[in-house]
């Protein structure tokens, strides 16, 4: 069998990130502690250059390479750029936080970049095995990152929990993949989809495989009832890591769902739609209700994530290209919101103090009107109140759901979002209506301040011009 070397141009962004990660790993060995900022700088430069590479090598045609295991398409390009940029933002916000806690080490960036690589591999996967490969690379990096503060008991516990449950979920996914392979005789998406379309849904093994795949997917999303790890990991991990886990991997999870369910198992839509309905309703209900009872902001945001995941699933389960567009828009917007939200948490933290309790936000308006306003925008955006972009994210999803005659699901969605408004309002209440208990001035570098301001104002700017991202998503999904 002649072996032809395929062109490597389509995977250049991944190759570049891989190379740079290795370079940072080696360079970091030779750096003194005070020069550690070089690793950070290199990581940021690689992410930004990767964005440029994606942009330069992109094409509007989908291209399948490596014998059908990798795909380069417009949807992947948009998602990759979002992953790179959001990870860069996460690195930026976490710099001061890590410095204050003696966690400013090269390994953070190496692991972070490996996670990014894992995410982009998932994004560009065209076969079940490639998906699994990317997923594991991401998951292993995240397990380690959660335990990054090795002296923190909570962190180690969270990492153990995450690892055990994550391994179980990966096992489920793999088991499901093996069943699908057994039923269809392939692990690439197009042949699987073709085989499924031919054999129909009567194949018991196939449906079982689908169930296991959906379980794996739900775990990665953190959808109820496979959400148990989310609050503990968000709470236990250093906030810098929580920020990272809470933002970019949501985009990757969306990509995972798109690749597995839509590219691979679209003919089974009627089956997985029902499963996702259950996951979505439970996630929105439980996430929003339990978030009210939280006193720790990281846990509160964890439950809020769960409820947002419910909304993302709503868009996917609609099964129309507008639905996918809406879900993609939602996951990108959510990643930006989570980035900003945890960014503010880190802004308020300082050496020896974690701004984790809701009471730490009291009187932020008196301490720093500007950042209180940014947090206000972020909270209203998460709550889905216009004119912030969070509203449009919810509206597009609702629109997709109503378009497939699932009016009741839309009503459930809006009902739980009313409940959700309460706990976001509570943060605003603490910031604006209460007197500060802690008057320490906020000490953040200029870079963090600017980035956070941009992040907060984006909520408003994108709310006024949602078409900016929406048209990108629409073009990527191909519904425009």
């Amino acid at each position: 069998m002649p072996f032809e070397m395929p062109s490597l141009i389509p995977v250049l962004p991944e190759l570049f990130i891989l190379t740079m990660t290795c370079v940072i790993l080696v360079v970091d060995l030779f750096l003194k502690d005070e020069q550690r900022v070089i690793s950070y700088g290199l990581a940021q430069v690689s992410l930004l250059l990767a964005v440029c590479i994606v942009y330069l090598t992109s094409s509007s045609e989908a291209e399948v390479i490596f014998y059908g295991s990798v795909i380069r398409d417009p949807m992947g390009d948009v998602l990759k750029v979002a992953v790179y940029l959001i990870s860069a933002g996460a690195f930026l916000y976490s710099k001061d936080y890590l410095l204050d806690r003696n966690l400013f080490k090269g390994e953070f960036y190496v692991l972070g970049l490996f996670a990014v690589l894992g995410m982009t591999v998932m994004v560009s996967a065209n076969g079940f095995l490639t998906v699994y490969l990317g997923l594991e690379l991401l998951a292993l990096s995240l397990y380690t990152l959660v335990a990054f503060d090795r002296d923190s008991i909570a962190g180690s516990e969270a990492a153990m929990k995450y690892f055990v449950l994550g391994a179980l979920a990966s096992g489920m996914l793999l088991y499901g993949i093996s069943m699908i392979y057994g039923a269809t005789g392939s692990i690439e998406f197009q042949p699987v989809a073709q085989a499924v379309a031919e054999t129909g849904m009567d194949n018991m093994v196939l449906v079982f495989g689908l169930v296991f795949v959906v379980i794996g997917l739900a775990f990665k999303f953190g959808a109820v009832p496979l959400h148990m790890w989310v609050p503990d990991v968000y709470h236990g991990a250093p906030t810098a890591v929580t920020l990272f886990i809470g933002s970019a991997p949501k985009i990757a999870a969306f990509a995972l769902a798109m690749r597995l369910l839509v590219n691979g198992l679209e003919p089974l839509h009627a089956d997985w739609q029902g499963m996702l309905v259950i996951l979505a309703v439970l996630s929105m209900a439980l996430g929003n209700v339990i978030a009210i009872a939280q006193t720790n902001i990281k846990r509160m945001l964890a439950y809020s994530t769960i409820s947002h995941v419910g909304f993302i699933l709503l868009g996917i389960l609609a099964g129309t290209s507008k639905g996918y567009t809406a879900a993609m828009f939602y996951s990108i917007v959510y990643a930006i919101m989570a980035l900003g939200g945890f960014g503010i948490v880190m802004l308020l933290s300082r050496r020896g103090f974690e701004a984790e309790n809701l009471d730490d936000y009291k009187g932020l308006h008196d301490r720093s009107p500007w950042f209180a306003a940014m947090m206000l925008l972020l909270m209203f955006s998460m709550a889905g109140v216009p004119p912030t972009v969070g509203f449009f994210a919810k509206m597009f999803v609702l629109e997709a759901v109503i378009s497939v005659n699932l009016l009741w699901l839309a009503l459930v969605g809006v009902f739980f979002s009313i409940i959700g408004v309460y706990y976001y309002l509570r943060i605003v209440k603490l910031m604006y209506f209460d007197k500060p208990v802690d008057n320490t001035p906020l000490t953040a570098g200029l870079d963090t301040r600017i980035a956070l301001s941009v992040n907060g104002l984006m909520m408003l700017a994108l709310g006024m011009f949602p078409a900016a991202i929406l048209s990108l998503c629409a073009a990527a999904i191909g519904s425009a």
Partner: protein
Amino acid sequence: MFADWPILSLTIWLPIIGGVLVLASGDKSVNATRWTALAISILTFVASLPLYSSFNSSTAEMQFVERAPWITLFNIEYYLGIDGISMPLILLTTFITVFVIIAAWEVIQYKPASYLAAFLIMEGVMVGVFSALDAMLFYVFWEAMLIPMFLIIGVWGGPNRVYATIKFFLYTFFGSVFMLVALIYMYFQSGSFDILAFHDLKLGLSEQILIFIAFLLAFAVKVPMWPVHTWLPDAHVEAPTGGSVILAAIMLKIGGYGFLRFSLPISPDASHQLDWLIISLSLIAVVYIGFVALVQQDMKKLIAYSSIAHMGFVTLGFFIVFTITANPNIETGAMLGVQGGMVQMVSHGFISAALFLCVGVLYDRVHSRDISAYGGVVNTMPVFAGLMVFFAMANAGLPGTSGFVGEFMVILASFRADFWYAFLAATTLIIGAAYTLWMVKRVVFGEVANDNVAALQDISSRELLILGSLALAVLMLGLWPGPLVEVMDASIANLLKHIAVSKL
């Protein structure tokens, strides 16, 4: 000459951008901030005047239309325009905001720049609500309104402000999300979010009823109608004076406006089927809430309940039209009812604003809103007492004031519909007079009750300017309501013609 200018955009964005500037200028030089805010609000008012002067009242077409694509994928447009129904309410908004800014002058000492900015931004957003012709644009403005009001009550409000403002937010949010679902549903039926296209959309009866209920949830909370009114007294009592004024004078009107712009024309058959519901709720508001107002100890609460009762007149006027048109012997009553409701909205905008400002004047001096903390105010504040008695009379519907015109029109119209409607509605003339005048009697007249009252200073020229202008407006509208009725004539006639045709 102004018809082609983007006056609506100007009236929306001038105060919003101005508000952001005021917010950015901060509290360093408070006086400059106040003057800037005042200048912006006056400029906005001036900018909105051409809406009246160049308004063509002979047509029911939308005027001053601006249309541009916004989110093309979902066919959402930046689509503005006004007719005779929305134009008076826009002018009311820009007019009242000027006085809210002036009323805050020395009174607000805590973060005045943010306070003024919040009201300016509110103003732009409210104008947006009245002028949006794209349902999604309307919804964005509608909800965006909540954020500044939430902060105004929460930051500058009274002791129980947090409870009041969260209740306010959740109630209104609860009402409006179901409207959102209804709007999206209609988008799939009509292919766009154009409100005027919704008007012509054919809908089955069960669809109409569901849509009607979704709208009712949103608008009834806003108006507010009994039994979802409970947020209003709380919000009014805790809100700072300016917040109460805007709430009573304009935000409540948005609910009434919603009925005219959405419920009636979009779901005429459902409105017809369910008009008994709205009429009963309105009459409960008029009679029962009137009695509730009678027993209030707190002046702001009293005016709040009186607002609910007065808004009951508005919804009554809007929904008796079906009973009237069903009667073949009667020609003109329907028109009278809707017009009466509209006049009542504008007039209540002036009167409730003035009454809340009056309470604000007293509160700034004595720091109490309890009726029992006052007595014999006329002895120390004769000018103020005169104005307050005047506004109280207007609130009770004294002929010659604007309060009379609207009420009288609605009562006349309801006579055409049903004697008992009119009978119950007319009780307000007694109850309204009772609660308002009894309050005035206890606060203004009699012997000087205590040292606080004895030490009162009469109103300053600033306060005189505000109350005097409002008094003038109330009087003008009461003596000569012609211009107001005229501008909305064509639009209301068109609306009635539209809802007379079944969509089934």
